[in-house]
């Protein structure tokens, strides 16, 4: 602690250089923060997927339907405690850019299978009582300024025409990664109103009594419906979400690559700053050693400077990224779960600390190994 004023004085002897270096690190860590936020958003489904839920879809493709009659047959399979279904609706609100996921759901079972979505019982009863009723996620409600009681017209893209719904409930996720952008309405309302596709659903979500049985239950389901007109492909919700995310590309690899380039650039910037700082101060370092400052103390002083620059820059960058993500999804619905986790914030700061230590290590070792007589000769 007693060296802190000395370290701070040294840091700001070249104010512009220090501020620019801190700025470079802040920008890099801001970028890092956004990248990991996007990665989190794309993998959000994977992270919060229930370990006790299986997704049963048409073996040919997700867009091919399954018969409604499968629900009862799924319930009869061992270890299956409930089976619910949903159908993708794919409408837009007012204009195509106002996209958000809409599902026609089985109102009798959906809430049991997805308990993480919190809805007041009063609002849920109100939704059940209205065949044109809808439940909307908090984020989407905020996005469009909807509130309970509003009548919302949606333009159908699969089943064309204008579909009108009454907002009867607004749900919230119980975990930070839960998707709060969905819009649910009665599957029965869709069934009655659509001109084609009757008697089918998009996919089933099956709740099992023990996650350890996931593999055997999946196999049993697919065997049960093999050689039928609607063969199934069953996998855990987590595997399903991961497969969905991979359709966009190997985001993790992309982020790792960009992150590595950013890290390397940071090392160069910070290392150069510290090398210059040490070069300029060789005689002063010689004086410190003359006064009795040991090699270890000199190493510590230079490393502490580098560490401070990197940590302040890192904290600033991560902080700005956090502030940015607090504003919510900037894409207008493509990334419904858009937030920077505390863990990733710490990871960003840890990277900054590593950069500070690594970039400062060579100049610090140079300073440590400086011979006093050589250093004083440069006065």
């Amino acid at each position: 602690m007693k060296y802190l004023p000395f370290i701070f004085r040294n840091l700001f002897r070249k104010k512009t250089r220090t501020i620019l270096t801190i700025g470079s690190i802040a920008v890099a860590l801001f970028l890092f923060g956004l990248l990991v936020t996007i990665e989190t958003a794309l993998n959000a489904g994977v992270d919060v997927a229930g370990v006790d839920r299986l997704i049963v879809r048409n073996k040919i493709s997700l867009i091919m339907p399954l018969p409604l009659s499968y629900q009862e047959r799924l319930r009869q399979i061992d270890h299956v405690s409930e089976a619910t279904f949903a159908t993708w609706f794919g409408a837009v609100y007012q204009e195509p850019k106002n996209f958000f996921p809409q599902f026609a759901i089985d109102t009798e079972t959906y809430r049991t299978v997805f308990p993480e979505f919190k809805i007041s019982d009063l609002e849920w009863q109100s939704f059940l009582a209205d065949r044109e009723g809808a439940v909307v996620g908090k984020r989407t409600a905020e996005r469009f300024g909807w509130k309970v009681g509003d009548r919302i017209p949606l333009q159908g893209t699969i089943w064309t025409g204008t579909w009108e719904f009454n907002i009867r409930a607004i749900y919230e996720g119980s975990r930070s990664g839960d998707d709060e952008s969905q819009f649910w309405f009665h599957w029965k309302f869709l069934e009655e109103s659509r001109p084609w596709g009757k008697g089918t659903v998009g996919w089933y979500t099956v709740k099992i009594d023990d996650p350890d049985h996931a593999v055997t239950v999946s196999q049993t389901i697919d065997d049960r419906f093999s050689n039928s007109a609607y063969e199934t492909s069953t996998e855990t919700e987590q595997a399903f979400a991961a497969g969905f995310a991979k359709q966009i590309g190997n985001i993790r690899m992309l982020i790792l690559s960009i992150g590595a380039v950013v890290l390397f650039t940071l090392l160069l910037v910070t290392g150069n700053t510290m090398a210059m700082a040490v070069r300029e101060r060789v005689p002063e370092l010689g004086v410190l050693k003359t006064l009795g400052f040991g090699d270890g103390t000199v190493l510590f002083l230079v490393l502490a400077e580098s560490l401070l620059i990197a940590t302040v820059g890192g904290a600033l960058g991560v902080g700005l990224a956090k502030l940015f993500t607090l504003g919510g999804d900037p894409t207008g619905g493509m990334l419904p779960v858009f937030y920077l986790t505390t863990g990733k914030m710490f990871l960003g700061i840890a990277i900054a600390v590593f950069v500070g230590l690594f970039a400062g290590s060579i100049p610090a070792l140079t300073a440590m190994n400086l011979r006093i007589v050589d250093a004083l000769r440069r006065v």
Partner: protein
Amino acid sequence: MVSIDGKEHSESLIRVRNLNKVYRRGGETIDVLQGLNLDVEKGEFVAFMGPSGSGKTTLLNLLGGLDTPTSGSVTVDGDEITHMSGRHLASWRARHVGFIFQMYNLIPVLTAFQNVELPLLLTKLSKAQRRQHVGTALTLVGLGDRMKHYPRQLSGGQEQRVAIARAIVTDPTFLLCDEPTGDLDRKAAEEILDLLTELESNHGKTILMVTHDPLAAERADMILHLDKGALVEAAEEAAAS
């Protein structure tokens, strides 16, 4: 009593025996110091003179533990420093040696107070104790009212006073001064020399000073000349020439 004969003197604070320093540059070897002997008692003020390149600063560096000799020994207050490790030597310097340089060598981003406080950061003194010591040292050199000034806000003479305060603040065993008046005008130089003389006579400090300035050397109890890597007393050198 200062002595260069190499005979044992029980009162010696600083004892140098058969000190050799050889520099190698390319294939050439330069014998800077050759079998140098020196004994200095506590409270003495010794001036070293000699032409450039005669090894004055090398001798000072060896006495202060800043450099290691090729052979020979340097013993200060019973501690032989020539075989100390780098870490021990650093802590020995912090406790026993006060350095005063020609170019003052103050840290430009620190105030006079902070510059003088630097050596105290290596001690276990509390902040309040450090403040008290620094105040005493700066008052002693006549700069009690300039504590918050940065080196750029001080004259050369004042900067050197701060450097002297930094050198004495830990109450070291002896002071090593390398051309302390070399960068000062006559008036400022006289003031610095007055201060060094006062430190010797009133505070019992042992001072070893390298200088080119005969007027500065006259302030010392004894003037020693470095000639061909060995020390000779001023009177002997005058007789020889």
